């Protein structure tokens, strides 16, 4: 059984919180507990921020799409833009260096996504860039939202 929804915003930071709120609610509805839903929310917000900031250089008027689909026991989120693409291998390599630098003001987004999600990948084809985030869903036996184990 697949359950799927697509979200889309214009490339502006002002709209990103609406994505975060929606993603959190969708995750809760798919059975993720509050902490896991918050982890997906944060990862998606980081990915969408990167589209606005880097792929579109904060230029409004472009579209960022967030495709959420639950299937085979996992949530798959694809964050799509048609802006500048990213050297994913280099970004991953840099991510760990930045994360270790306590004085860095930025550069933590990729590290955060890779830490919180069960899988992260990036593909760019014909001008369409897609960052893919995977989070395992609780099995049916534990499907009810559980209190956050913080």
């Amino acid at each position, binding site marked *: 059984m697949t359950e799927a929804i697509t979200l889309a915003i214009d490339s502006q930071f002002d709209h990103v919180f609406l994505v975060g709120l929606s993603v959190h609610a969708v995750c809760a509805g798919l059975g993720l507990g509050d902490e896991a839903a918050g982890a997906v*929310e944060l990862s998606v917000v980081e990915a969408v*921020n990167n589209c606005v900031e880097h792929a579109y250089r904060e230029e409004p008027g472009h579209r960022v799409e967030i495709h959420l689909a639950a299937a085979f026991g996992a949530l798959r989120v694809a964050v799509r833009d048609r802006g500048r693409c990213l050297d994913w291998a280099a970004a991953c390599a840099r991510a760990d260096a930045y994360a270790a630098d306590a004085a860095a003001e930025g550069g*933590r987004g990729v590290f955060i996504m890779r830490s919180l999600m069960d899988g992260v990948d990036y593909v760019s084809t014909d001008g369409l860039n897609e960052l893919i985030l995977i989070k395992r869903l609780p099995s049916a036996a534990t499907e009810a939202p559980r209190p956050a184990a913080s």
Partner: protein
Amino acid sequence: MELAQRIEGSVLVAKACDHRVDARQAADFKLQLLALVAADHPLIALDLSDVDFIDSSGLGAIVAAHKQLGTRGNLVIVGAKPAVANLFRLTRMDKVFRMYPAEAEALAALMH
């Protein structure tokens, strides 16, 4: 981003009044925090108890203020909810900033 300010003894208590500290407010949030540091408040308790969500840009604004403060003072975090505390822990910022559940404990620690 509304940052409510109050003086308690030698400490400036600054409370973030938004529920979300994200890229929408990060630039303004950073400017306001830097202004506090520039206004010669070496002891700052940043109250995040109303904040449900913070992303790496919001965290970056706090790191910027902390850097500006350098060894002249101290900035501590008050009342972080689980989602906020999780981000500090994940990025190891809980080793950089002392974090207190409530203001009284932060004030006691900052004033020795």
